[in-house]
């Protein structure tokens, strides 16, 4: 499998704050990639860098073998829907489709109008008068009908109600199957992504915490429960992601490639949501630690 998105030491700074730092990624083609992290973690920055809307401060990024935005030809191969699905509020649905047809050489007009019809959108309606869900669908239609190889979606379902969320993701998955494209979609909610993603990137506090295929992540992360003990005394190959202790019991989320043989532990699988939360809370704890030292 070839990489559609390759980042090496990628970083982006806004004035003095690093929105993304030291990001190294290698996203294979044909996957649905979930980009998860809390608000302000750098998801939008990473997607904008991939779309070529931003230039990196450090490191390099290659999308489909080229640094974005290389040329109109490369732009044609990448679809992007920004956060809140921006559309021209004064233009009608039909105007948006004409816009796409005029500006994209590979435009699939039949597919676009077919999708609009299936979604039940009125072509004469202005985008400004549509609901958030309809606008998101319109923006997705625009991005899909240019026939991209890579589709980047920034928080596509954040503004949608649960039903619209499900419909949107369903529509997206149908398109993915039809067109065989690679999708990167971000969300701060794992639940949105759990059902659709093959690949997960956890981004917290401007750094990539972990990236990998969902199956692999599930197979290498375990929840260990047992009598209270110090996590530092675990075998070398077991990386503790999060730990919580009561007086008598210790619960650990660990990552390891090897099987766990210690009979003291009750080993259970980690749900994707708990896994992500473990990574998020780990970074939050790291950030808090210096404060505690000062208090002591």
């Amino acid at each position: 499998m070839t990489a559609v998105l390759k980042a090496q030491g990628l970083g982006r700074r806004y004035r003095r704050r690093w929105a993304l730092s030291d990001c190294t990624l290698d996203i294979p083609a044909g996957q649905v990639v979930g980009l998860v992290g809390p608000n302000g973690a750098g998801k939008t920055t990473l997607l904008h860098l991939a779309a070529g809307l931003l230039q990196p401060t450090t490191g390099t990024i290659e999308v489909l073998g080229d640094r974005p935005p290389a040329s109109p030809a490369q732009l044609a191969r990448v679809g992007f829907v920004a956060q809140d699905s921006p559309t021209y509020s004064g233009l009608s649905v039909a105007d948006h489709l004409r816009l796409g047809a005029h500006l994209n050489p590979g435009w699939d007009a039949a597919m676009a109008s077919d999708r609009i019809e299936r979604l039940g959108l009125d072509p004469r309606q202005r985008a400004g008068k549509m609901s958030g869900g309809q606008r998101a669908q319109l923006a997705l239609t625009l991005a899909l009908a240019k026939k991209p190889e890579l589709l980047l979606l920034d928080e596509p379902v954040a503004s949608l109600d649960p039903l619209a969320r499900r419909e949107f993701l369903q529509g997206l998955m149908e398109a993915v199957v039809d067109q065989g494209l690679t999708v990167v979609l971000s969300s701060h909610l794992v639940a949105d992504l759990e059902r659709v993603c093959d690949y997960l990137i956890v981004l917290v506090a401007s750094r990539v915490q972990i990236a990998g295929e969902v199956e692999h992540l599930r197979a290498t992360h375990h929840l260990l429960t047992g009598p209270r003990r110090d996590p530092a005394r675990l075998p070398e190959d077991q990386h503790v992601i999060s730990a919580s202790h009561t007086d008598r019991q210790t619960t650990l989320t660990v990552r390891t490639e090897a099987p766990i043989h210690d009979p003291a532990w009750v080993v259970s699988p980690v749900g994707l949501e708990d896994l992500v939360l473990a990574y998020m809370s780990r970074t939050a704890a790291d950030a808090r630690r210096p404060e505690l030292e000062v208090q002591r």
Partner: protein
Amino acid sequence: MIWLTWRQFRAQTIAAAGLLAILAIAFAVTGPQLAHLYDTTVATCHAQHDCSIAVGTFQAEDSFLQDLVRLVMLAGPALIGMFWGAPLIARELEAGTQRLAWMQSVTRFRWLAVKLGLAGLASMAVAGLLSLMVTWWSGPFDRFGAGRLDPAIFSERGIVPIGYAAFAFALGVMAGLLIRHTVPAMAVTLAVFAAVQAAFELKIRFHLIPPVRVASALNMAWVTETGSGGPAGPGSLYIGIQPNLPGAWIGSSQVTTAAGSTSLGPVPSSCGPNATYSACTATIARMHLRQVIVYQPGSRFWALQWYETAIYLALALALAGFCVWWVRRRVS
């Protein structure tokens, strides 16, 4: 990209075309009448020796339309900058729609170049047409008064409005791009444009071509007032002159002594409080005074128009170039 620009700009273009059409109709109806009136009253008034009445009556014709023309020509370029220039990019940045536009298979450079080019040309075309109509319609009126170099007339005739419109438009685009909000960008556009225009009119235009400087014996026919005071201080003689150079734009006119000093000496007794005006002028005539006049002759109207237009167009191009650079490098 041309289609999108047209689609986004359609309403403004139609509105501008409508306004131009209304003005054109008003001019077409009143213009020939004005020309006829001028030919029959003002042009023949010398024969009947009542020119001041004829001119006064003529100048009062269509006073509403005259005021309207003045207002439109004064505000037009600023309005273009505020309502066409400032929202061009700012509205996209406010709504985030540049992220939609830039992800089509069109580079940002082309996106901005087409928008700037088409809307900029439309701005210039509107200003040019407007000025063409106004210059034609106001022709009879412009033959009176201080002539076409009068600042109030010069900047509202000929080709300079095209330069103003281009500059105001580019200024608006740049303000919108940097401020990223339409309404503040409009305010800044208006303020900066007004300041640039005022500075140009007061400080720069007169020196676009080195003015003519004439020093000669004082022409007593041009003396309009005498008294004491003036630049040499109280008690010294002051003579005010109004050079009769038709169509010229007078920068300064000074009366000096034969030696070139602006201090004309004490007020002669024949110009004192109890003296008659004719006795005073007779005394002054014997003093061998000189006059120094710095002015732009009326014949330089088109030369000054071309220079000013070229400078404004160059400024507009520089601002547009900055916008292109900024969009490619800095905006996301």
